[in-house]
């Protein structure tokens, strides 16, 4: 189903303003896209991280849906428990009328998903809970001051991969979380980039309506962490897709496909932009340009080419 902005504006935004996310952070936009993609009642859980901390600073909350936070590593376990409790109440006939058909959605940052929360996520996927897990991937532990995570790309300057005479930043490639999730043979998994809101909302809707576990990995540029201007997220989200740094992928019942601009690139209808176009205006990669680290830039391009080839093959190209 297509979404029309003229219809969406009439609905209540699920996240109230007054939250303390940084100026220009797209994570609240991601929450908006996910939660507004369906009219079902929703229940959310949140892993510790920027989104959780900054939307619930006491005595305020920005959430207009039932919301639960337990810890950093267990958003997926928390949502599993909520979903199981819901079925328990339904069986006893004690479920309030307005919560029939409720949908369960967990949010977590990349630290809370790729790293510390991966066993909770894996468990929830394997147990087959009827829920959606959304990772907003800002490529680092941003809430605690920009530490590297297994989602941080090579060459990025973070506080735990600091740049110096002996270091060009992070040395390791990003973890392929999508493939790990898909290996659980769940019915739906996809990647989204918030600038392509239509693609993101369609995937969110599919993921929420799917019976069983679903997973979305949402690209989420970070203003202080990537050292970028406050109005940069849209452009960078677009460039990440155009460079194939962040391909738009959908995996439905094990069948891989590409969507949006990524499909156009794979079909030869659009150009794959060189990775430097994505990197050159980000402070976290600045040293690669000022110190003329062409070898590292080549490493990054090679890594993108390798993963793009892999995803293209998976999608049958």
């Amino acid at each position, binding site marked *: 189903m297509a979404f029309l902005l*003229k219809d969406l504006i009439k609905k209540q935004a699920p996240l109230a303003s007054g939250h303390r996310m940084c100026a*220009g952070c*797209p*994570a609240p936009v991601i929450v908006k896209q996910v939660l507004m993609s369906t009219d079902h009642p929703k229940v959310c859980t949140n892993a510790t991280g920027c989104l959780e901390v900054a939307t619930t600073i006491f005595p305020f909350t920005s959430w207009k849906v039932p919301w639960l936070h337990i810890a950093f590593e267990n958003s997926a376990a928390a949502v599993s428990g909520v979903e199981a409790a819901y079925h328990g109440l339904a069986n006893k006939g004690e479920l309030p009328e307005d919560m029939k058909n409720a949908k369960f959605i967990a949010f977590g940052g990349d630290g809370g998903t790729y790293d510390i929360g991966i066993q909770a996520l894996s468990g929830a996927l394997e147990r087959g809970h009827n829920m959606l897990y959304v990772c907003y991937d800002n490529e680092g532990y941003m809430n605690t001051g920009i530490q590297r995570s297994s989602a941080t790309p090579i060459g990025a300057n973070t506080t735990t991969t600091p740049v110096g005479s002996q270091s060009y930043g992070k040395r390791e490639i990003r973890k392929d979380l999508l493939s790990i999730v898909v290996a659980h043979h769940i019915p739906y998994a996809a990647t989204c980039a918030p600038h392509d809101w239509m693609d993101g909302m369609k995937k969110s809707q599919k993921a929420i309506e799917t019976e069983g576990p679903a997973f979305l990995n949402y690209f989420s540029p970070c203003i202080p962490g990537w050292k970028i201007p406050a109005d940069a997220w849209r452009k960078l989200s677009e460039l990440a897709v155009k460079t194939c740094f962040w391909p738009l992928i959908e995996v439905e019942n094990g069948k891989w496909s590409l969507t949006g601009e990524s499909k156009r690139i794979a079909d030869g209808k659009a150009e794959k932009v060189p990775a430097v176009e994505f990197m050159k205006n980000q402070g976290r990669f600045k040293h690669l340009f000022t110190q003329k680290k062409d070898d590292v830039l080549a490493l990054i391009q090679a890594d993108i080419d390798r993963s793009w080839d892999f995803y293209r093959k998976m999608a049958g190209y």
Partner: protein
Amino acid sequence: MKEQKKSWNELPIGGSILEAGNSKNYFTGTWRTFKPVHNAKLCINCYFCWMHCPDDSIVIENGKVTGMDLDHCKGCGVCAEVCPKKAITMEKEEK
């Protein structure tokens, strides 16, 4: 701009928050260095600014963008960046 901050003896017992989305009573507009200025003459009401605003600060009345909620807008400028008609410009806040 006046902010509702409760003291300890005005808060509900147990620290419960009784109103969903009550963060709207906290004004993040003070963060701003640049403010968005909306030009209704150029605006085509495409609502791209609404979709891209992280702070739910685009005011729409009867289907028309009428301006910004400056109590909450943090001045990130994404609305101006995404506007296809340049109907939003960022101007320095005067104190």
